[in-house]
């Protein structure tokens, strides 16, 4: 009796579970047929928002550019030092321009090129005592040296301009000529909120 009953019970149970799985399959298939594209779209959108990878994406954007370098520094890491002998500056340069980075030293705008790539390089720093407080002492033909983890580059100042914080067109991104643009807030000894920027333009010497 037992064997027969148990055998039949197992058989019926398996059939019922298979039927239940068929229900699931049918529902999944229907959803996929009707909403498959939308679901895929949503998942890829959410995956894009799963952006610990945001840093990598910024790097990838630059890497895909023509003549890009092979190994870019990770966003937020120091990859160089900047030396401006005239004003006694010798500071670390970090890839990125968040307020957090600017606390540590000089920031490198992630939308600009790297030294040696032959394009616009944009650096920025606070006008505080330990950073660019003495920026006003800079003169034309002064030298700026950027020592990176992959080479040393020297730039000569050829222009200095006072711009409004909104005049981004005065910091153009191009790839015809290697130009280093370094800016800080103006006035240098201001008290309160600074709406102007003092930009130093320097071209590559060696």
């Amino acid at each position: 009796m037992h064997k027969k009953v148990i055998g039949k019970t197992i058989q019926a149970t398996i059939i019922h579970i298979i039927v239940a799985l068929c229900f699931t399959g049918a529902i999944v298939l229907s959803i996929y047929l009707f909403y498959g594209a939308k679901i895929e779209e949503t998942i890829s959108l959410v995956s894009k928002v799963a952006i610990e990878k945001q840093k990598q994406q910024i790097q990838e954007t630059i890497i895909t550019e023509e003549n890009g370098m092979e190994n870019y520094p990770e966003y937020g890491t120091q990859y160089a030092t900047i030396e401006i002998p005239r004003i006694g500056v010798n500071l670390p340069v970090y890839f990125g321009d968040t307020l957090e980075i600017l606390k540590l030293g000089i920031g490198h705008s992630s939308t600009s090129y790297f030294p040696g790539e032959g394009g616009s390089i944009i650096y920025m720093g606070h006008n505080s005592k330990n950073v660019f407080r003495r920026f006003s002492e800079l003169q034309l033909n002064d030298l700026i040296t950027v020592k990176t983890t992959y080479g040393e580059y020297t730039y000569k100042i050829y222009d200095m301009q006072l711009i409004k914080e909104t005049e981004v067109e005065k910091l153009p991104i191009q790839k015809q000529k290697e130009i280093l643009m370094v800016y800080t807030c103006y006035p240098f000894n201001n008290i309160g909120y600074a709406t102007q920027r003092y930009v130093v333009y320097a071209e590559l010497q060696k």
Partner: protein
Amino acid sequence: MIKQIIRYIMAILLTISIIIFTFVSRISSTILSENYVLSKLEETNYYEKVYEDVKSNFENYIYQSGLDETVLEDVVSIEKVKQDTNFIIRNIYNGLLETIDSQPIKDKLKQNIAKATEGMNLNITQEQAIETLVETISGEYTTTILHFGFEKNINTGYQSLVKYVTLAKRIALVAMVVCIFIIVAVSTRRIYRIFVFISMSLVASGTFLVVVNQVITSKIDIQAISILNTAISVALRNIFSELLGSMFAYGCGFIVVGCITIIVANLIHNIRKYNQKNHTKEEA
């Protein structure tokens, strides 16, 4: 035959209703619940992280202002951050559009700056720059607390979402009751079928929840979700993980309960059938 078809159709509809009901119930008791979200914020040290962000943003403005960091002393506290964050959450969940009061921050900052610049002969331009700095810092505070510029859209969106979720929950519940009623009505002669069909629906819906969970976790790295800042990201990761985890747990529960009921129902049915057969044989 017709009864059998009706049973299968009802079982599929019951499966869909269970899935919708489970999903909607979990959503309304997690993401759409004000108390749940507030408890998660507390659990993930959200307020502390936001407070750190606020302090850090303030410092960045002070660095470029020519003022000393001491002007930030007692300008903002973790209690104020908590109070304002909860205020914003309540705004969202209650459809209100009240704004954060940043006046105390402005007042304290002005007071500190006045103390720090005491004795300096400030000109009009510098006074205006200080005014702008105070406005910018208090604005930065509001932005850091709000995180979004579209609070109004979230508020109205939330209200209509709650309406639809409640409606979907009710419809799913009514559909479940109707399906079970029809299955019972067409299976009065063989009661075991009632249990088997309802259990099949449970197993099917459980499997669906488990499969969906696996698909989502394999395609999206929940722990890598990073939105706006660390505080929000950690809270969201926690909420999503818990939501998916509970869906998975419900799915597994449904499968286990469904399988056990199918086995028991089939076993009882087969024992009865066997006894009946023996009884008929003995009578013969």
